[in-house]
């Protein structure tokens, strides 16, 4: 019984005819059995200009290169500039207070170990176009009434 179901499932996922070739838009519309020419390595954005966050809880991404920055159990190169005690000198943006909170919500004197590895949430950006179509709308845009309609009056 099971082999039959499996065979049916497999048949359903296979292309309808031999003429159809499977492609994956993430690979640039090259048939999956062919080797795609990889795109050129993009440059990391390095403009030092803060980007708009897509939603209020989004961890801000890093507007500069972090090539070769050491971030391990011994050293945190990010904190070299972004730590509370260094920002006067470096004029970097300090960590928010949430980074000093442990999981019980107590604010500690130093960065909480669970928030220590910056690149878990904060990442630099490459200068590339999105690989797939993306229709994400910012809340500001999405909550705006469509053209011709007025916003409902708040009660």
């Amino acid at each position, binding site marked *: 019984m099971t082999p039959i179901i499996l065979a049916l499932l497999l048949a359903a996922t296979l292309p309808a005819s031999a003429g159809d070739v499977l492609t994956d838009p993430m690979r640039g519309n090259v048939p999956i059995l062919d080797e795609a020419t990889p795109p050129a390595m993009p440059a990391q954005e*390095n*403009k*030092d200009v803060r980007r708009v966050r897509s939603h209020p809880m989004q961890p801000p991404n890093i507007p*500069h290169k972090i*090539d*070769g920055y*050491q971030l391990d*159990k*011994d*050293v*945190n*190169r990010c*904190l*070299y*500039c*972004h*730590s509370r*005690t*260094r920002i006067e000198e*470096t*004029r970097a943006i300090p960590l928010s207070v949430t980074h000093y909170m442990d999981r019980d919500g107590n604010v*500690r004197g*130093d*960065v*909480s*170990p669970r928030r*220590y590895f910056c690149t878990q949430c904060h990442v630099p950006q490459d200068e590339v176009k999105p690989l797939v179509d993306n229709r994400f709308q910012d809340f500001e845009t999405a909550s705006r009434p469509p053209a011709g309609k007025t916003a409902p009056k708040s009660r």
Partner: protein
Amino acid sequence: MIRRGVDLLRRYWRVVRRPSAYYSLGFLTVGGFVAGVIFWGGFNTALELTNREPFCIGCHEMRDNVYVELQPTIHFSNRSGVRAKCPDCHVPHNWTDKIARKMQASKEVWGKIFGTVSTREKFEAARLELAQHEWARLKANDSLECRNCHTSVAMDFTKQTRRAAQIHERFLISGEKTCIDCHKGIAHRLPYIPAGESPSDTPGQAVPGR
């Protein structure tokens, strides 16, 4: 015993002092000059042989630890193909400083013979101390080995990112800080630095929970 030693010295002193009975003055001066050239050339050649990357990574301590760490950094692989090799940063170029550093390096020969950092564990344990020596040296000579290539006079701040230009203007040009103060760990991995243990303290590097 002492008497015999003094006698020996006296005998040699007499030989050295006595004018030559067999060799002409010309032979002795020209011969001495030629011998001097050969000696000096040989000394310098041998010295320069120890100033090459293959010599540095001839020992596994350097090849497997610090050399591996150097390879992904900008000083080893970069767009223009200029490479800073071990002696460019770790051996002073000036002759007297170089000889002084070479004499200090006899400690490294001792370390090699007795296996002071012969394993990865031993190296990691000694890393902070070794790094501190280099930081202290670069701090004392105002980052001379950095400035052999990177002079602040030749730096075009408009070609730097705004962030880098501002920081260089405030700290480098004012002389408040020297290269190594901020650019520690640029060519090798940094060890954990306990607060107060680096020549220019770096509180940002305090690691939570230690």
